[in-house]
Structures are given as structure tokens and as C-alpha cells.
């Protein structure tokens, strides 16, 4: 059984705003698979470019909304792929990251990649439903 998790705020519907052919998240087999989370305004969908820290803060806010609307939470993350634009910012990522996954952090892999629209960070996560 595969359930679609709808966008919990209109700004988080990247399909509507940017034409990405994807659902915000899918629940299946006791897990929630989220589409790559980007720093967009949850109300308007506008891109919120900034520092890696400020972008990560927006992303975690969006992720919290999405997971909680699906009955999960940031405490239930299982695996995180953190994409950053340049590995030189690895320490900066860690500093902001640990504020959001303080207890029992999930498994994680970080790599440097080109992220859409020149964003500095993107989180690709799986959470327990």
C-alpha cells in the first residue's frame, strides 16, 4: 500500500510551483519517503536563498511541517542524505544540523552536489511513519 502525503502548506507543493513531477512524500511499508527538501517559503513557494545555515533552517522547518502532517516527526528520521554545494561547508552544516536532531540522530551521508536553482543545501530523508 502506497499513500501520498500531500503538501502541508501550499508553498511546499513543488509540483505546483516548479513543475517537478513528484509527490511531497510517500508512505509505504511503515516508512515515509520524502522528496528532496529545499529552502522554499512554506506559504508562497518562493525560493529562500541565503547562507547554508539559513537555508538549512528553512528546510528543517519545512521538513517538520511535512513529517508532522504525516503523523511522524524530526525525532523519527531514519536516514538522511544531506547534499551541500561545496564540501568546504561541511562543518557549517554540522553546526546547524545538530540543533534539529539533538537526540538519537538518524543515519546520515553527506556529499557535495549541484543542487537545483543554486541552493546550498538539500535534504533527502526517510522517516519512520
Amino acid at each position, binding site marked *: *500500500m*502506497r499513500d*501520498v502525503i500531500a503538501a502541508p502548506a501550499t508553498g511546499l507543493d513543488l*509540483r505546483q510551483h516548479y*513543475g*517537478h*513531477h*513528484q*509527490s*511531497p*512524500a*510517500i508512505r*509505504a*511499508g511503515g516508512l515515509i*519517503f*520524502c*522528496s*528532496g527538501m529545499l529552502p522554499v517559503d512554506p506559504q508562497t513557494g518562493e525560493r529562500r536563498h541565503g547562507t547554508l545555515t539559513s537555508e538549512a533552517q528553512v528546510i528543517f522547518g519545512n521538513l517538520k511541517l511535512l513529517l508532522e502532517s504525516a503523523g511522524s516527526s524530526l525525532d523519527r528520521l531514519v536516514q538522511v*542524505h544531506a*547534499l551541500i554545494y561545496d564540501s568546504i561547508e561541511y562543518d557549517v552544516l554540522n553546526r546547524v544540523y545538530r540543533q534539529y536532531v539533538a537526540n538519537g540522530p538518524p543515519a546520515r551521508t553527506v*556529499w557535495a*552536489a*549541484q*543542487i*537545483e536553482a543554486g541552493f546550498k543545501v*538539500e535534504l*533527502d530523508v*526517510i522517516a519512520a511513519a
Partner: protein
Amino acid sequence: MSPRREIIVPAVHAPDTASSFGQAVSTVVRGGDFLFVRGLTAIDPQSGERVRGTTASETRQILTHLKQLLEAAGSSLEKVVKVNVWLHSMLEAPNMNEVYARFFSDPPPARTVCGARLPDGVKVIIECTALA
């Protein structure tokens, strides 16, 4: 009871495409309720040969192949939960997205797309997780 882990040997393509490239990779592995499909590049499923093309044509080739693999394993594109796409350039994302949208009917799976340096001149790699 379903097997906890099972390697599914694709019947749809030549003897073993992965090992013919000398890679220690299975193409489809079942684990629990899920099928995990390796990162696919554009190949001819019959011969296993690389097919070079544009981002759009490689995407079409890969997703056609993926559809066959999933259906041979008793799943389908409709049962895909998550797709990861790597592109040689994020400038090509709209070209990938346009072809991609023709393969996945509503509602589409969750997806993450990023740009990376890909091996061997490949323009697109697509990996997916589906319900078995």
C-alpha cells in the same frame, strides 16, 4: 512468509549486464516489502550495450528499462515510492523532468534530483525503491 532478502535476476536482458561490465552489483534486490533497484544508466536491455544520447533520450531509455525490470519482478512503476536522479548538469533537469512525467502517472513517487560528476560520460543515473 516473504524472504527477507532476495536477489532478483532480471529475465528481460542479456545474461548479466552488471557483471558483463565487471561490476559487483545486483540490479534488483528485494528486502522486506521493498524492491531496491540499482542506479541505472542508459543501456540496451537486450545487448547490455551502453546507449549514448541526450539527457532526454537517456532518461527515456532508463525508464523504459526500469519499467521492464519492475514488471518482471512483479511490481510496476505505479508501485515506486522513491526515485533518486543524478544528472551530469542541473541545467538539464527540465529535459529529464519532461520525459520522466510521461512514465509516472498520478500521483508520482517522491523524488530527489541533483547534479554530480557521473562516470564514463553518462548523463543520467536513476535509482529507485518500489513496493514489491
